[in-house]
């Protein structure tokens, strides 16, 4: 039962029910931080931390939270963790914090975190909820990293800040701006969903 659930957590969050390309959650940050890979990684680490810990906390308190105020409580928990991430970045990684600017604060509004708290943590034990939070954060992260990889490569001719394409390459400015993210995300969803649907069709016949 336990192992089955753990397997489900991985296959759901990373594949079929991925928060970004299946549920299309967390798109605001997907558009905002994926133009340079470095920022994306910090955003992803922040999100994994917040989703994991807020799911854990919500799950620990799930027996006591009155159901009519549960969303307020969840928001409070999420906001506290995000503020902690923000403060810690400012104190120990000031350069990264400056680059991310307001985006760290915007983790609060990332629907994935609230979604996992509501859909999973409220009805599952703490250990599993923590794992679910972390894994759904990973599901979000790898999609963002793929998008960021192509946006930085095409938009700036570089990867992780290092120039990889020669002087002959003309940067596609649109890739650095928000519309580029829409294109990349759409192409990503198209490819992944296409292959998922094919798989399912094969199973049915």
């Amino acid at each position, binding site marked *: 039962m336990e192992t089955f659930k753990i397997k489900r957590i991985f296959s759901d969050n990373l594949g079929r029910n991925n928060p970004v390309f299946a549920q299309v959650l967390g798109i605001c940050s997907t558009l905002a931080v994926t133009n340079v890979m470095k920022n994306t990684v910090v955003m992803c680490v922040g999100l994994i931390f917040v989703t994991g810990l807020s799911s854990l906390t919500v799950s620990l308190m799930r027996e006591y939270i*009155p159901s*009519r105020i549960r969303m307020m409580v969840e928001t409070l928990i999420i906001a506290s963790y995000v503020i*902690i991430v923000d403060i810690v970045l*400012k104190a120990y990684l000031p350069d990264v914090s400056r680059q991310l600017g*307001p985006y760290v604060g915007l983790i609060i509004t990332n629907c994935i975190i609230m979604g996992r708290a509501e859909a999973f943590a409220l009805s599952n034990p703490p250990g599993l909820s923590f794992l679910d939070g972390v894994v759904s954060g990973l599901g979000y992260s790898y999609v963002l990293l793929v998008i960021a990889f192509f946006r930085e490569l095409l938009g*700036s001719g570089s990867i992780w800040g290092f120039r990889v394409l020669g002087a002959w390459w003309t940067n596609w400015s649109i890739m650095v701006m928000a519309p580029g993210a829409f294109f990349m995300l759409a192409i990503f969803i198209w490819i992944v969903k296409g292959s998922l649907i094919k798989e399912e069709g094969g199973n049915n016949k």
Partner: protein
Amino acid sequence: MSREFFKNRIFPVLFMFVITLVFISVTTVIYTITKDTIKFNESLRLRRAILFAAGAAIPEDQDEIEKIIAKRVKEVKDDKGNTQYYIVYKEDLTAVNSYVIIKKGAGLWGTITMAVGFDGGIKSLRGVEVIDQNETPGLGGRISESWFKEQFRGKKSPFTKVAEGEPADENQFQAITGATFSSNAIMDILNTSSIDIKEIAGDSR
């Protein structure tokens, strides 16, 4: 009846109150612990920026920076106690190496704060440093890249722009392709700083 009333009305309020208190306390503690580090980071950043704009060498070691600041840099304040500009003396303290002014201007997404350093005769630029900016990463954000900042050393205002990659004479600088607004903002900041510094530091010499 009264038990129901407590459960449905009073308990949720109490619960929310207590949990808010707990989480606010935790974040307050973390904030208090890191407050000094954050303040220190900010002042260190300002000091580095002043030295960079003055064209002085910046040591890696933080204590060394403190020493240089204490020995060679003088803060000039107006009657109300606000900082107007900084005087950076030559290493042997015989003459003024540079006048550095901290200037803010409107960027595309937020305020751009810069340290602008002029030579002792206030004729040409010693250097410029971007202290704070929220421009689009990969486009306007490139104002923080070193090729952009380094090009100003020895140049004279008032500035005009040339396209990125084109040769610029002493009154011109290379703008960033795809970031016209940010480039214009820099141009405005530099041009107004040179007018301001002549006004406030010009007569005191």
